[in-house]
């Protein structure tokens, strides 16, 4: 049974997507429990896989028994095992948290919405698990198309934002596809491991170099690296709350994963990092992303929009860390995929609970929030500490690796940008704390005893939020295990 786990990982969300949408016509009450059950099942499978990888090493699964390089393989190794667990955990927690939203917004479209939700997930999981460069493109499109729909289902300007995203996303995906075409011309194969074997013989190949650049450019569009980030803030902040909590933590992080995967195990580090000028240029792009993302976040007056620009900055963290090309940098970038997914999830679940209760996430409406929604705010504060990078939350440790990477590479611009972004994040979140802590100023110099009325979000929102918040601390404390038992084993020998 265990041997078919890699296939189950994709098949469970895929089949249950069909089942759930069919159930929408029969009995709507069953849709939600079914979706939760299937995600819980997939999560259990991914945990089983991760345990197996840690105990016995990577697994290569041949789809339908076809042998590579002809057939498509799914590879679960040290790199993607933890990412898979995080993706499914994020999706499950967000689904539970979004229950009330889904019931309210999509009452009559419950089956269709949940079907899309699961289909999106099978795309994301597939991108991470696949060992085939072309298959990655196919799954990328599955994930993207469902993503456009999930965002476009929102109110007011959501369809327009989704259309924008669609244009940009399609361009990005096409670039990636073009890159794969060049790889195929140069190597004659699409299997990742197979390409990696052939790359050392093609060291000076211009075709392959072009392939690298085009692939990366495509992925940069999809992950919203500055200055290609224009689609992201609108798409994420106008999306329905249920979708935002799913797409914001996952899409960019999965694209970063794809960058790491393609950079490390398709092109091999020796080829990817062979041109200092290219690496340097991309790191400076990342620095620009960090600085401008932070500054743009400062200008926002709505929580969810502020978060979207923080994502833009965080993408810069990971891209910059990866292209430093040294061990600490790549480790930090990979670790930050996991940590940032958890952090973003916590933030977006908190904002979804706040909007649920207040009907708005504008700064001026947040007054007295610590008194009204103390539990939501506990989760929010922990997430904020993680984003700022205060130990022992996980955000500190990935930033630690990233900065160490910057120091080791002598890339002081990157180090300064990370510290600058930490400081800006501190300002961003303390501004919120301040608004939420101070009620509308009362007469009598604060000596009043009637605080804001306790008005907390439903338990299905608060419980997943608090679990996610605690996981930020747990991830921080287990950084050592994640790094030494997984990430460092995933790094190929070529990285110093």
């Amino acid at each position, binding site marked *: 049974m265990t041997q078919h786990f890699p296939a189950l990982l994709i098949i469970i969300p895929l089949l249950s997507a069909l089942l759930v949408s069919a159930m929408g016509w029969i009995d709507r009450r069953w849709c939600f429990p079914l979706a939760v059950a299937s995600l819980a099942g997939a999560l259990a499978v991914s945990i089983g896989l991760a345990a197996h990888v840690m105990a016995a090493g990577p697994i290569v699964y041949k789809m339908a028994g076809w042998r590579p390089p002809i057939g498509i393989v799914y590879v679960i190794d040290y790199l993607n095992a933890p990412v898979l667990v995080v993706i499914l955990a994020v999706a499950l927690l967000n689904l539970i948290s979004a229950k009330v939203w889904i019931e309210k917004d999509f009452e009559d479209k419950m089956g269709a919405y949940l079907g899309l939700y699961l289909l999106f997930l099978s795309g994301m999981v597939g991108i991470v698990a696949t060992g085939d460069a072309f298959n990655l493109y196919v799954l990328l499109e599955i994930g993207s198309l469902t993503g456009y729909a999930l965002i476009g289902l929102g109110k007011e300007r959501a369809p327009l934002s989704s259309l924008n995203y669609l244009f940009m996303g399609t361009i990005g995906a096409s670039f990636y596809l073009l890159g794969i075409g060049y790889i195929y011309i140069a190597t004659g194969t699409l299997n990742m491991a197979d390409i990696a074997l052939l790359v050392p013989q093609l060291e000076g190949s211009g075709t392959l170099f072009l392939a690298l650049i085009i692939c990366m450019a495509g992925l940069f569009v999809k992950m919203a690296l500055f200055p290609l980030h224009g689609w992201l803030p609108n798409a994420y902040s106008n999306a329905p709350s249920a979708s935002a909590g799913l797409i914001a933590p996952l899409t960019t992080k999965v694209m970063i994963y794809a960058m790491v995967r393609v950079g490390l195990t398709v092109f091999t580090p020796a080829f990817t990092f062979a041109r200092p000028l290219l690496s340097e240029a991309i790191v400076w792009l990342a620095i620009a992303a960090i600085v401008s993302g932070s500054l743009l976040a400062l200008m926002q007056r709505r929580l969810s929009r502020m978060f979207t620009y923080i994502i833009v900055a965080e993408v810069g963290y990971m891209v910059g860390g990866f292209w430093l090309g040294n061990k600490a940098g790549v480790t930090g970038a990979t670790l930050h995929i996991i940590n940032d997914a958890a952090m973003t999830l916590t933030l977006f679940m908190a904002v979804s609970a706040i909007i649920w209760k207040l009907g708005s996430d504008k700064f001026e409406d947040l007054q007295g929030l610590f008194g009204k929604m103390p539990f939501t705010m506990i989760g929010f504060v922990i997430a904020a500490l993680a984003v700022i990078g205060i*130990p022992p939350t996980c955000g500190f440790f990935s930033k*630690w690796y990233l900065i160490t990477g910057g120091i080791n590479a002598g890339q002081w611009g990157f180090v300064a940008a990370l510290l600058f972004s930490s400081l800006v994040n501190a300002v961003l979140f303390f501004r919120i704390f301040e608004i939420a*802590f101070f009620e509308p100023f009362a007469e009598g110099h604060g000596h009043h005893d009637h605080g804001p009325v306790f008005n907390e979000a439903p338990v299905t929102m608060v419980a997943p939020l608090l679990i996610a918040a605690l996981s930020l601390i747990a991830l921080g404390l287990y950084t050592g295990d994640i790094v030494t038992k997984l990430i460092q084993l995933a790094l190929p020998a070529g990285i110093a």
Partner: protein
Amino acid sequence: MEMLYSAKPLAAILVSFFVVPIIFSSRSENVREAWTFVAAILKFAIVLSMLPFVLKGGQIAYTLVEVLPGLAIEFKVDAFGMLFALVSSSLWIVTSMYSIGYMRSLNEHGQTRYYACFALSLSATLGVAFAGNLFTLYLFYEMLSFATYPLVTHHQDQEARSSGRKYITYILGASIGLVLPAMLVIYSQTGTFEFAPQGFMNGHFSQPATAVLLLMFVFGFAKAGVMPFHSWLPAAMVAPTPVSALLHAVAVVKVGVFCVARVITGVFGTKMLASIGLGTLVCYVASFTIIVSSMIALSQDGLKRRLAFSTIGQLSYIILGIALLSPSGMTGGMLHIAMHAFGKITLFFCAGAIFAASGIKNVSQMVGIGRRMPYTMTAFLLGSLSVIGLPPLGGFISKWNLVIGTLESGQIFFLFVLLASSLMNAAYFLPISYKAFFCTDEEAMFEKKVDEVPTWCLIPLCMTATCSVIFFFYPQPFLQLAKLAVATIIGAPMP
């Protein structure tokens, strides 16, 4: 050196952490405050139970979790940490008592949050005191910043808001902007954070690099109030007086100087600093702060603001003492943590008592108040004498050691700094007491009769004032702890 592995340090830290949910769930005021007392006394008892072993020259260590190689949450109780833990945990009991009297008589709002944050702050303070490496130190330092923010901004009005903003900007900005990068650079070169008696930086950095790193720590631990990173402290005086008393005369600010002292002794190493002459650099920075803050204090009319600037100066005494790098200087610096704490907390208690009883905040309006509140103002006099450093009060012992320290290291300039500052201390403290007691009936500014404050407020301030006197005659265990700590640092046999 004897080493004992025990979870006691962790227990001492967590006692007040676990009491937070209980405080929040308590329905009645009395139950809530009772739990605060239980936690405070328990914490003090645990700290006290470790004292005999530490006094024998032993150390108590405990590793909670090793996050990365060399990056562990780890506690180590040595003489210096013990000294600081004793001071802060004993004064928490007293302050809790004072809080009850003060907060209830002023009918403050949000008292539950107040007591909970207080308990959290004490957890963080002990975490700093017992930190076994730089990472743990930084972790609890940051935790303290966050836990104290709701206390500083307790009144939740416009003034509290802007002061809170200033507070967090200085504290957090300096620690993220200066301390964190310095830590990272040190870690990337040495690969360790473990405090060692002679530091662990030897030979890894050039002299200019070491100087830059050292200053990054001295300024970055902005809680120590070294100028120009001091102006959060006067701003933070908007907090209720018990907060100013415990946090901004004892726990928070002393955490700052404790961190600086730890870094100087445990990270850089006194021998290394002495050999390249960087101790003197820090001495000059501290001296500047001492003189300038004393001069500013002279001009302040708000009593709490005057106390705040006095605190800034006194904190730099401690840094000066450590940076003299001579045995007596270091002893005096460490001892001053304890002596100044007891003296200054008395002064803050008195300031709060005056405000609670009469609503007066300014020195110029306190003419004749000694006649109305004789006990409070007597305690105030004792406290100010201790801070000035006159016998027969505890402050004398630490200042004496500091003065000897300047002579030992042969840096006479700093002797004059200390003496000049003492004169100025006298100049800004003694007139308050003088006017409080000696004035004609026409000058006395009180229309209606002011009674002494509630007993709950009065007892604590009398206790701390008495302690200040007792420490002159019997400065143990603080003196012994300070000497032990210095002996470990300079590698001398145990005293």
